[in-house]
């Protein structure tokens, strides 16, 4: 917490700079560790701009099914992104979601998926395979173009225009973390985050809205 206060104080100082140098982009790096200091992979980092409305846009994304596993396990996409679910296994899978953000079922199939699924509402979508209970994947649907996912080193870097942001962090096995405001100035910004990861947690962590 003490660190977080430092961060906030540091951010306040940056805000002054931001006003001075507007429309400048800055490299922001977020490092996520456990309280014990271990790097946390697949943590979704989402920056919601507070000062400007981000331009609309969507993307395409792929979640493959390899060896009865969704790859990747966690993706974050912009609202309206179409995601295809190719099947690299030789067995069939039936991808489904009962998440309110996007409910769908891809009936049993094999090989490359013919259809893609457009995630048109922000929120967390939990994917499963109807015939393989162990298979699960998470699709975070956001309205902002600024988001990322920590690498195996527990860091994610992106360029953000200067300004104020709301920073959301989510990890499937972590307890919900409160969103925080971030001010991005001209200089590079490094944001360390500590989260509690419980790999044995039965239920998925709530999606930060």
């Amino acid at each position, binding site marked *: 917490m003490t660190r977080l206060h430092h961060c906030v104080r540091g951010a306040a100082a940056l805000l002054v700079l931001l006003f001075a140098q507007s429309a400048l982009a800055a490299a922001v790096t977020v490092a996520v560790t456990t309280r014990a200091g271990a790097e946390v992979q697949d943590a979704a980092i989402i920056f919601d701009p507070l000062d400007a409305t981000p331009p609309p846009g969507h993307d395409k994304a792929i979640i493959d099914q390899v060896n009865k596993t969704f790859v990747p396990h966690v993706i974050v996409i912009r609202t309206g992104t179409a995601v295809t679910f190719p099947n690299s296994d030789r067995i069939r899978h039936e991808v*489904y979601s*009962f*998440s*309110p953000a996007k*409910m769908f079922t891809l009936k049993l199939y094999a090989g490359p998926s013919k259809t893609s699924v457009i995630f048109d509402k922000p929120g967390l979508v*939990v*994917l*499963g*395979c*109807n015939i393989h*209970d*162990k*298979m*699960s994947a998470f699709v975070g649907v956001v309205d902002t173009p600024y988001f990322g996912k920590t690498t195996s080193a527990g860091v994610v870097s992106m360029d953000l225009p200067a300004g104020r942001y709301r920073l959301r962090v989510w990890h499937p096995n972590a307890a919900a973390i409160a969103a925080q405001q971030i001010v991005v100035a001209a200089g590079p910004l490094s944001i360390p985050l500590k989260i509690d990861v*419980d790999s*044995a*947690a*039965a*239920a*998925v962590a709530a999606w930060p809205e």
Partner: protein
Amino acid sequence: MTLRTRIAVTFLLLLAAVLAAALGAVSAANRGNAEREVNRQLDVGASVFSRLLESNRRQLTQAAQAVAADFGFREAVATRDTETLVSVLENSGARIGAALVVLTSLDGDVIAASGLNIQAGTPFPAAPMKRRSTVDDSGITVMVDDGRIYQLVTVPVRSPLPVAWIAMAFELDQKAARELADITGLAVTLSVNSGGRWSDAVSTIPAPAERRSDVVSRRIDVSKWGNAEVVAILSRSLAEARAPFERLTRVLFLIAAVSLLATGVAAFWLARNITRPLQDLTRAVDRMRGGAYDVPLDLQRPDELGVLADGLQLMQTAVQTRDRFIRQLAYQDTLTGVMNRTAFSEALDRALAQSAGLPIAVAVINLERFRRINEHLGYSVGDAVLTKMAARLAAVPSVNSAVARLAADQFAAFARLPDSGNLLHWGTSLVLALADPVFVEAQPIDITATLGLAQSGAGRASSDELMRCADLALDRARREKRALAVYEEALQPAARDQLSLLGELRRAVERDELRMFFQPKIELKTGRVAGAEVLLRWQHPERGLLGPAHFIPFAEQTGFIRRLTRWTLDHAIAQGAAWHRAGQALCLAVNISADDIGDMRLDARLASLLTRHQLPPALLTLEVTESGFIDDPVRALRMLEAIAALGVSLSIDDFGTGYSSLSHLARMPVHELKIDRSFVQGLEADPESAPVVRAAIDMGHGLGLKVIAEGIESEEAALRLRNFGCDVAQGYLYSEPLPLHAFEAWMLGRERVPVIAVPVDFKIENLVETSNLALY
């Protein structure tokens, strides 16, 4: 205790001991068995119970998982389609008969429920799960709600991550408890702890009142979870568990009692079967002891008792045979086969008892000179003669086999006589039967039989009496050399009661009942009285005057003669001395018995008497029979010499009847011989005795002795004796023995009137010698 009781009681006690031991062992084992059985049953019950719970859990889990995995259900969960959810829950619960199915959120709030009246959105009361709690699938979860106990299984609903819980439960109700009880045979109770107080939620025990104290139970913790602390109590009544064993024990007791009874009856029967024949045998043996040998002893049994009875039968026969033989020996004469004396006496006694007044005649028969047959012809001939004689006697019809052999040559027979007059006739028939010569080995042997006859009557009622009388008659017949004699009263010996005689004799001496009689002795040459013999008489107070024959022989037999002799000597010497003092020197002769000679003090006593009464020894003569010095001649001789030395004369009495040797006689210090009266009396009748008398007289003179003859009853005898040279004579011719006064009177008359004795056989041719006749 009888043999029968002993046998039976022994068997019964033995069996009772065995049965008691067996029953004790069985009931001890049963008690232990029941407890072990109950404990084993409880172990099994506990195991079954836990398997039941496990089975329930698996069933619930499968059913719940099936629901949770259903895609449509998950979709309904995702969409919170409550009505659909409730229907699905009801449906799935009904499939396995679950009591309740509840869907809750991950936080435990009820989403939908079946079988449980609970509002959606309220927390599930027994939900163990929290959003992040660890769910242990192997645990058995128990919920208590409204006093009902539920076995609960909770599984997550995944889509694919857990989004909700499904709790599915069976109620552990009475039915479940009953099923468990039926499977395990135990009473099942489920007890719940609510606020520290245990209460039975479910029980197969009908009512608490019926709960027994002897219950063995096992507590199984079903759940220790806070508000649902539940235990299962499996129990079994020991009494109930023991019941089959107790039934078995009762049956065993019954069997024991029945077998005891049966054995008792059998033992008594068997014992009786043994002892009854034993009693029969005992009675038979008792009868045998009494002499009955005709007791049937055949038990008709094949066993040992039968053998015993057969043995006793054989023994009875053997004893009977021996008894018969012994009886023969005891009652039969082995040689002739006729009765012996004993048997004859008994038979005679019986006949007397049955005679009914009719006379019974007895004959005692003696075969004369039978010894000579044995001696000359041999014993075998003698035996043959005896046998034939016995057979002849037995063949006499009237005798009817009542024949006995009494001694070697003596037989007896008795017969019933038709009347008393026939005795002699009967005796004659016997004599005739025995008269013919007996042929032995074709050799005729003459046998003379002498009979003594007696017949029953007054004083002859017993066989002893009768036979004694017949004996007396026989004696008479033999004495008189007749073929037969009949008993008469006169044959009875005079003094029968000699036992009292001794006492009477003593009294006679004490009371002075003895009398001296004097018989004069006459000098044949001169006719002078040479002296007198002193003879004893007994003035018996009842029987009158008794001669010496009545008591002297008895006194000699009993030794009392010495006393009599002392008395006689005393009185004779005193009388002799009195006469001597009166100027009448009469020589007195006193009889001395053989026993007196044996008296060592006889000489001293004589000397003392002679001195006391002042009688010259020459006036005393002691007459001694020859038997006096036969017993101990040396001692007798010494005594006689001592007496002779006193100056007392000695005379040999009854000379000629004894057997003393003449050489002996020559050495005897005697002075005279007294020739026995039998010779003198024969002088008249028997011409042959004269030379004997003469020879005796000559011999006496030859030895220098004076010769006396006694028993002279006739003048002729006196004359002859005088002719033979006999010195002195004594006899009735001169005087019978006279009492003192009569004798003194006789003496006086004698002196005054001389008598010229003329011999009876005086003949003219002898007159020449008349001048030589002495004046008496």
